């Protein structure tokens, strides 16, 4: 047993990481699906999209070959509509509430149609949005992830000049280095970021970390308002013996490496255990398998009824040949010569429901032992607690607390996205960015006064 890189041929890597939701082959194929859309009134799909894209409208526009109009409808509501069309868990969002589900017929492939239009917009660099003349107002945004970019774009459209401070050397946030490579490629993310900034009025300063290269006080002094979209970053520790052994990896780091370093350079074990069953766990498990791991086992301490991932995602892991062990919780990692050799788990059972009806897993006293050479931790992410508390930001276990107008406890400082909600989807972060921009515009108008215009 060993952890190795370069397990596959170039073609195998290529095939394993090709798009799992391929686009339509042809215009006709898209039209057939678009024409199935009933053009619902007050459409349930729109109500189930966190960014409220007017879905029947954009689909109707596809049916009339008005692709530009369609792309505008999507991107006006969701500036990351191109990325979202590839990464949204649509089965629980828009497509999950398409009325066709009542007819036991496949719902309209909304995301695929969304991709059809937005991909063209990005490919042809359509200048769909015009920025209003500069108002002279300035806002600092921290984090070039979905929340920060969406906020920046909405502000810039209104004539606010935005500077984004980003600690990495690329924009896109977890979209660029967190999401499974078979959903979006780094080029897609790059193109999406440049499409967003092509509006003008948005300056991204890379390699600028808040709390390190730039302070909140500076930003407050130099800008009319500050928006925090820093996301959540750190993987939760298991706090069990053996966690320090070589071969224990953090899922986010593992996935980041796949995106950053290229498939052949990422080492993976023969027998891999992945701990947790959220989207991150699935992504780590499937990608470990696709990198050439012989055996991948997902260990989850509850049952399928409680799992955070959707059934579609679970099936993805199953189809990739990953094993699942339900009701097992890591107790200890054992090693030989400083390297992982075994994962010992408590066998759990579900207790009687508490008042909320939730059944917590409890230990049965029994254990099981898995022979593994790699353990990937995907038991959730922890917010940047230190960053938050050193800045005296009111918070909830490190998640930034905001009021109904996206404002933190520090006047002029707003926040949204994963750093507030603790980690949801890209589409939620985009909406949070829009909400933040709206709140900041109101703040600028009422607290600071109407925008200055140079005559």
């Amino acid at each position, binding site marked *: 047993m060993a952890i190795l890189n370069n397990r596959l041929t170039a073609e195998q890597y290529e095939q394993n990481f090709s798009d799992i939701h391929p686009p339509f082959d042809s215009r006709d194929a898209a039209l057939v699906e678009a024409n199935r859309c009933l053009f619902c009134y*007050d459409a*349930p799909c729109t109500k189930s999209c966190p960014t409220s894209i007017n879905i029947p409208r954009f689909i109707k526009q596809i049916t009339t070959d008005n692709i530009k109009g369609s792309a505008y409808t999507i991107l006006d509501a969701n500036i990351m509509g191109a990325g979202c069309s590839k990464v949204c868990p649509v089965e629980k969002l828009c497509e999950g509430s398409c*009325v066709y589900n*009542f007819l036991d017929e496949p719902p309209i492939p909304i995301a695929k149609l969304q991709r059809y239009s937005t991909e063209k917009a990005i490919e042809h660099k359509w200048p769909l949005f015009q920025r209003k003349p500069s108002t002279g107002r300035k806002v600092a945004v921290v984090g070039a992830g979905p929340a920060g970019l969406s906020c920046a774009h909405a502000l810039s459209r209104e004539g606010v000049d935005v500077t984004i401070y980003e600690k990495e050397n690329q924009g896109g946030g977890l979209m660029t280095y967190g999401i499974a490579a078979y959903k979006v490629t780094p080029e897609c993310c790059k193109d999406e970021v440049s499409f967003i900034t092509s509006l003008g009025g948005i300056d991204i300063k890379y390699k600028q970390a808040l709390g390190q290269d730039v302070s909140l006080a500076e930003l407050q002094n130099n800008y009319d308002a500050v928006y925090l979209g820093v996301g959540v970053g750190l993987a939760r520790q298991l706090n069990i013996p053996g966690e320090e052994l070589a071969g224990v990896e953090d899922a986010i780091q593992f996935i980041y490496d796949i995106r950053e370093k290229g498939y052949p350079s990422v080492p993976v074990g023969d027998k891999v255990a992945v701990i947790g069953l959220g989207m991150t766990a699935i992504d780590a498990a499937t990608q470990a398998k696709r990198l050439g791991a012989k055996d991948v086992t997902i260990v989850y301490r509850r049952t399928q009824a409680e799992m955070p991932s959707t059934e579609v995602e679970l099936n993805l892991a199953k189809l990739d040949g990953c094993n699942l062990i339900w009701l097992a919780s890591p107790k200890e990692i054992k090693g030989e010569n400083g390297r992982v050799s075994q994962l010992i788990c408590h066998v759990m059972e579900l207790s009687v429901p508490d008042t909320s009806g939730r059944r917590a897993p409890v230990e049965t006293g029994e254990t099981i032992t898995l022979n593994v050479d790699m353990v990937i931790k995907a038991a959730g992410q922890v917010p940047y607690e230190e960053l938050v508390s050193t800045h005296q930001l009111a918070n909830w276990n490190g998640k930034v607390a905001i009021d109904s107008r996206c404002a933190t406890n520090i006047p002029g400082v707003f926040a949204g996205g994963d750093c507030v909600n603790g980690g949801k989807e890209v589409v939620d972060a985009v909406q949070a960015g829009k909400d933040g921009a709206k709140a900041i515009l109101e703040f600028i108008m009422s607290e600071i006064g109407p925008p200055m215009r140079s005559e």
Partner: protein
Amino acid sequence: MADLSANFLGIKSPNPFWLASAPPTDKQYNVLRAFEAGWGGVVWKTLGSQVKNVSSRYSAIDYGGTKMMGFNNIELISDRPLAINLREIAECVRLFPDRAMIVSLMADNSRAKWHELIAQVEDTGAHGLELNFGCPHGMTERGMGAAVGQDPEIAKMVVEWVMEKATIPVITKLTPNVHSVVPTGRATVEGGTHALSLINTIQSVTGVDLDTLVPNPYVAGKSVYGGYCGPAVKPIALKMLTTIAQDPITSRVPISGIGGVSTWKDAVEFLLLGASNVQVCTAVMKHGFRIVEDMCDGMNNWMDEKGFKTLDDFIGKSVPTITHWEDLDINYHIVAKINQDKCIHCGLCYIACEDTSHQAINLSYGNPYNTYSIKEDECVGCNLCKLVCPVDSCITMVEQRKGDEYVNWKEFQRRGLPLNDH
């Protein structure tokens, strides 16, 4: 097993499905394939003086993802040499003696030319003649085709010339490019035609190419009005057919129904409204001859279910149900009802009624699904919601008569009954 065999003016065919005079009947190769596929008869592509066709010559209307809802052509009559056509017709009659062979004709405007052509065609052994008074393009400029069909006097005169010579049954094919097909229909019946067929194609412009800015079909930067046919024209054809079936003079002769027939259901509708058989063109141009299988099979099953043994049992049966507006029963009233178990909450009924009709549907907001219900008092029974609802029998119209007796508009006025009581 019902009996599908048809007898049109003594011309027998194993079923009532004939191919209309058009490219599918332009040569022996096609016609033999059609007969092999099971078509009951053909009307050979119109013969006349020599012509030359252009390209392109077709265009189509696609609608809601369906191709060729409407079809358009600027083709002329057969552009193959007459002698070859005549030889092939004779050959087809010889090879399939049980199928109907009608030959469509359009001679130059002289009695002698008509007589000459008729004699040549009769020599082939064909069973009948169809006079093309309908071709809407190309030939009209020379005073033929629709130019004849649009003038009852000329049409009658030409029929009279034909009847002097013809020894086999004569069908006159009418153009729809008139206010009413009845005057020409009457004139030709009075002129002696044995039967009528309708409709030929309707003059149309199917659309303009948004890149070249030239309408379709495109011929070297120009276009012309073409003849419209296919599923899109069926309602118009049915209406024209009914007027012919109702008229006391034209209804004396059998009618061959044409225009948008694509399925057995369409054919049954034509027969119910007075046609004795049907002719098909666009549907085979789209799908090939094989569609006749389901046409026969479907009609057969329907007849069995309804207990009709022969075509005569139902030909014309629906004609008397088309009446005048003044004779409709004003006391008949229906109200929409939504089956909440079937409703998929698409809101289409609501927005149609709200924006464009009678605001008779109630919306109660939900997330993500709204609930829709009918305000019975506001519902005028127009049917719109039922028509837009995408779910089978989710909206039904429930009868709620305003009074037991039959009251029509004339009676309503005579009694001075109040307007808008419902």
